């Protein structure tokens, strides 16, 4: 195989993996703390892309889109947590999965009502046009930008969780919520904050990806399945697992496209089934 093709697809896999990490990271933090499997997380990602599109088209500024999308979607996340997820705390986790499944159906059809069935794309900002050349590999500048933004966000999140006082609360929350409460932390408020922050994170991912991929009503459902697979193979609720899972899945998808031409989409399911059967609790299982 041509090494240039191989390097390109590995880079593709890395970009995709980083984006998946932003979505799946939020998903796994929400599960770890709130015990909620949020099927609507893909819808938040999609809303981020659509909001980003609208802001970018109406103001002409992509930077503004990157700021507005997470703010707007964060607010939607607040409404979702406050009015639908909160009443179900303490119920079996399946209820939350089904609830958010219903929410994702609503979101997908709301998108079609507002934006229609058309496929949109955001124009790449002027400075990020063009390609970078190295070792005979041509790679779009914008993809490096996506890679950089995702990596920076991931580092910021890691710093926040590992090094700040609030991060301690989050880590404690994924371990043992009752003890945290006994230490005088208002866990309800923490839950809301975490849900809103993770919603905003998904929205940034959606807006950042929009110029690279397209914006369409199925995109939320498409990414949520992948993100769930990341979380499952990484180990439910494990943040480190989500990072490892996302990087593996990114490569499986993009390398799968090169190796298994014509049957490439199957690669992710093969990887997931294999990992679930060999290590049912995921690659990185911290508890039990």
């Amino acid at each position, binding site marked *: 195989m041509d090494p240039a093709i191989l390097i390109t697809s590995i880079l593709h896999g890395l970009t995709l993996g980083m984006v998946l990490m932003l979505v799946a990271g939020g998903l796994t933090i929400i599960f770890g703390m709130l015990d909620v499997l949020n099927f609507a997380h893909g819808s938040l990602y999609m809303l981020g892309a659509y909001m980003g599109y609208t802001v970018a088209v109406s103001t002409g500024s992509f930077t503004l889109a990157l700021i507005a999308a997470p703010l707007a979607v964060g607010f939607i996340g607040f409404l979702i947590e406050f009015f639908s997820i909160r009443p179900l705390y303490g119920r079996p*986790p399946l*209820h939350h999965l089904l609830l958010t*499944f219903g*929410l994702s*159906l609503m979101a997908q*059809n709301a998108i079609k009502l507002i934006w229609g069935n058309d496929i949109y794309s955001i124009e790449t900002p002027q400075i990020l046009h063009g390609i970078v050349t190295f070792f005979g590999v041509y790679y779009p500048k914008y993809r490096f930008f996506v890679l950089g933004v995702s990596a920076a966000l991931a580092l910021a999140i890691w710093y926040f969780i590992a090094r700040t006082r609030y991060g301690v609360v989050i880590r404690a929350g994924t371990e043992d919520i009752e003890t945290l409460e006994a230490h005088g932390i208002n866990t309800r408020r923490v839950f809301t904050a975490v849900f809103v922050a993770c919603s905003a994170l998904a929205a940034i991912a959606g807006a950042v990806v929009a110029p690279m991929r397209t914006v369409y009503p199925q995109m939320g*459902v498409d990414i949520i*399945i992948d993100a769930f697979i990341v979380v499952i193979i990484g180990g439910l609720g494990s943040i480190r697992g989500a990072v490892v899972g996302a990087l593996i899945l990114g490569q499986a998808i993009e390398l799968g496209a090169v190796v298994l031409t*014509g*049957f490439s989409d199957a690669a992710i399911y093969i990887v997931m089934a294999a990992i679930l059967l060999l290590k049912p609790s995921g690659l990185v299982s911290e508890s039990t």
Partner: protein
Amino acid sequence: MKKRLGIYLLAAGALFLILLPLASPTLISPYYLDLLTKVLIFGIALLGYDILAGYTGLVSLGHALFFGLGGYCAAYIATQYTTNLLPIVGFALVTAWVVGIVVGYFSTQTKDIFFVFLTLAFAQFFYLAAFNLTTITGGDNGVTIPKMTLGIPWVWETGIPRPFHFYYLVLIFFFLSYWICRKVIGSPFGQVLVAIRENEERVSFLGFNVHGLKIKSYLISISLASVAGVLFAGYQDFVSPGMIHWTISGDFILMSILGGMGTLIGPVLGGAMVLLLGDWLSSVTENWMILIGGFFVLMIIFAPNGVVGLITRNVRNSA
């Protein structure tokens, strides 16, 4: 008293389903008779789904695999060998069992959310296979199926005119499925399934082979999905990879929850609600799923046991 009321209601419902077409076309137009046929086909799959999800507690997101597999079996036999329904059903069942033993053996080793996603993985794998193996499945274009027939293969065969005769044929399959599921649930085996749902560990301490029992439950469940798939292929005269897509499995979950899992008749009612409401709403707005989704969300929050759960709770309260 309460139990007898339930039996009366079921008998009334069955009688209604038998007599309704006779009132055609004054009370029910051929269009709605056809739609009701679809409701009953989904009903067969949902009865089976309830055995696994409602009674055994294993919520699958991969049931469309067997629904679609039944459809593709029907397409294969009908286009290559015979359009006779009975050999088609037989072939579809055997194929479903062969695939089901493998998928079921691995899937039922996990539970809860892992079961949800492992079944999803297997089903999506088959979806992609149906999509990509164009020489066998026709890929995205699907396969058009000749009209199915009844009778003795190659000796005497008769068509199944729509909607009247086809409706009764499906109704017979539906009653048969309901009877089988009742028998299964009422048997000691069915009781153990419920016990597995409630407390798996204790059941295995009692000396039961939990994994084996789960596989059995799985096989019963997918058999009905497969038969429903054959009938649905006959209903549409067409199969496409869409029949295997996970959104169909999602519909099964949606319908079961709305009606009330673990009640057999609940999921069927849920399926009827979604299909009839969908048919009615889609004439009003193209994006009717937003309303169904909203209704579903409200049901999960306020009535997680579904419509049947609501009714039985009220009956109990008033008694």
